[in-house]
């Protein structure tokens, strides 16, 4: 890629992909911004003209707005905590030589291949159903009163379901990171008198910090927009209405595209605030 000629050729050849991706991003963004300044009710008169910042004021002053932000952050935070803690532990476990390692690794990854809608329905009907669910049977076996999970512990249930889906991702990334740890380092630490716990704290965990950062950032992007799990379980009831779900309700249930678009812009702002905080906290781990 040294000569002037090859550099301009490279630019021309990359252009279609760049233009396509740019359009893919810009068109929806601009349409969202466009609609957010309009009163647009598809089934009740259609485009009713410009309204300035009306939609923004209405969206933020709704009684559902701040609870939805709270629910979003609790779910994201809860899932991140569970997947990273258990991901590290599982990765260490799977890195031990054991019989049937290949099969166990595939099994651990399996939940990631299940569609969110399907897994949420399986959890809802087979595990968490207060009458027929496995958990209800388990509770009854020990003589306890079954919990109706999705109404009494709705947020925790959603966190549990989503964590189950994302744990394989975290485990996989952390496992590959653990495998790249030089075993001589651990042996040196062992010779230096470090207990297994100190070896974990002083050698393994620092080695994993970069992988943990990657997991944290990627998962946050996807977790801010979880939808299917809420849609098929609580439908946003019992305090599980996230910002994404609130926008969905505004656009499709209330048929108010303008209001929903304003919510979309708020979602972009929220994602950026979270991103800034995350980069402040963990971004330095990505420096080589």
């Amino acid at each position, binding site marked *: 890629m040294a000569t002037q000629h090859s550099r301009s050729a490279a630019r021309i050849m990359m252009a279609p992909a760049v233009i396509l991706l740019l359009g893919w991003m810009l068109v929806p963004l601009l349409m969202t911004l466009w609609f957010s300044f309009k009163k647009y009710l598809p089934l009740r008169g259609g485009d009713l003209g410009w309204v300035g910042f009306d939609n923004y004021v209405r969206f933020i002053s709704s009684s559902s707005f701040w609870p939805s932000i709270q629910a979003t952050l609790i779910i994201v935070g809860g899932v991140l905590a569970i997947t990273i803690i258990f991901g590290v532990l599982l990765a260490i476990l799977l890195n031990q030589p054991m019989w049937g390692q290949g099969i166990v690794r595939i099994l651990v990854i399996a939940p990631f291949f299940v569609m969110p809608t399907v897994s949420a329905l399986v959890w809802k009907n087979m595990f968490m159903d207060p009458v027929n669910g496995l958990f209800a049977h388990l509770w009854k076996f020990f003589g306890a009163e079954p919990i109706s999970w999705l109404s009494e512990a709705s947020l925790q249930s959603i966190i549990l379901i989503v964590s189950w889906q994302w744990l394989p991702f975290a485990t996989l990334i952390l496992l590959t990171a653990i495998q790249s740890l*030089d075993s*001589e*380092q651990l*042996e*040196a*630490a*062992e*010779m*230096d*008198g*470090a*207990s297994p716990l*100190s070896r974990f704290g*002083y*050698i393994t965990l*620092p*080695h994993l*910090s970069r992988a943990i950062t990657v997991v944290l950032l990627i998962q946050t992007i996807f977790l801010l927009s979880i939808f299917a799990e809420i849609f098929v379980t609580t439908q946003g009831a019992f305090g599980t209405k996230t910002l994404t779900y609130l926008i969905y309700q505004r656009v499709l249930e209330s048929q108010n595209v303008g209001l929903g678009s304003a919510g979309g812009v708020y979602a972009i702002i929220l994602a950026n605030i979270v991103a800034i905080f995350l980069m402040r906290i963990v971004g330095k781990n990505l420096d080589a």
Partner: protein
Amino acid sequence: MGQIKLESVTKSFGPVEVIPPLDLTIEDGEFTVFVGPSGCGKSTLLRLIAGLEDITSGKISIDGQDATHVPPAKRGLAMVFQSYALYPHMSVRKNIAFPMKMAGVPVEEQNRRIEAAAAALNLTDYLDRRPGQLSGGQRQRVAIGRAIVREPGAFLFDEPLSNLDAALRVGMRLEISELHKRLKTTMIYVTHDQVEAMTMADKIVVLQAGVIEQVGSPLELYRAPRNVFVAGFIGSPKMNLLTGPEAAKHNAHTIGTRPEHIAISQTEGTWSGTIGVSEHLGSDTFFHVKCDGFDDPLTVRAGGEVALKYGDKVFLTPDLTQLHRFDAQGLRIA
């Protein structure tokens, strides 16, 4: 203190016996080198002594105390690894402090020992750097520093110089030898390089396939190799080994003569041949001479300024007082 004694130690990985029963005593303060070709079990033996591998049977004692089942950290040994195994996220200072921190040494004492080790190893200016910012030789010194501050009964080195370039290797070889002279601590050093073994060791242990072929001082091994393997392994370039009728003339199955013990002449000698490749080192010249009646060319050492070249006819005369004779089992005939 650091006398290490192995009594009928064996090691098997599953059905494969890597080390058949082996006895060895390493005296306090001795610089012992384990040398042998790749896969001869020398690194495994070192790891058994360190406690990083469990022995299958036998007994290891350190200073007369049974250490067979003592965990690595409690054996009072410090190890320097081939890859240095420095902790990449810690500064040099923290790397060196790590074993003391684990042992709960007071901070003032830690700092005193770090300063002393850094001064001894020329690391004072680098204490706040990360290992990734150091050169290979500096990393090697940090690894040694981390071993020194523990004030161990013995140092274990696992091919510590094999990742360094040739010039640095010679320098570090000297530094480690000097360190041994100064500390007078037992050192066990594993290498596949017989030059390192010859230059550094008080005692060389030659290993092949987990079996000790010979133990002795460098010159003992050079003068009187116990068998054909040791004869071929110790000395550089390799000893010339001849079998067949030429050996039979000396009542042996195999005879060996070192390149430095053959005289080369253009007029007369025992064997006649043609010069093949010659390697001019300045101080010495090594000729590979294809002799009539022998399968393999003989290596011969001559002075640095010998006017012989490819294709010249020459005559060779071995120094019969320096001839090594071996029987059909490969053992030395006295």
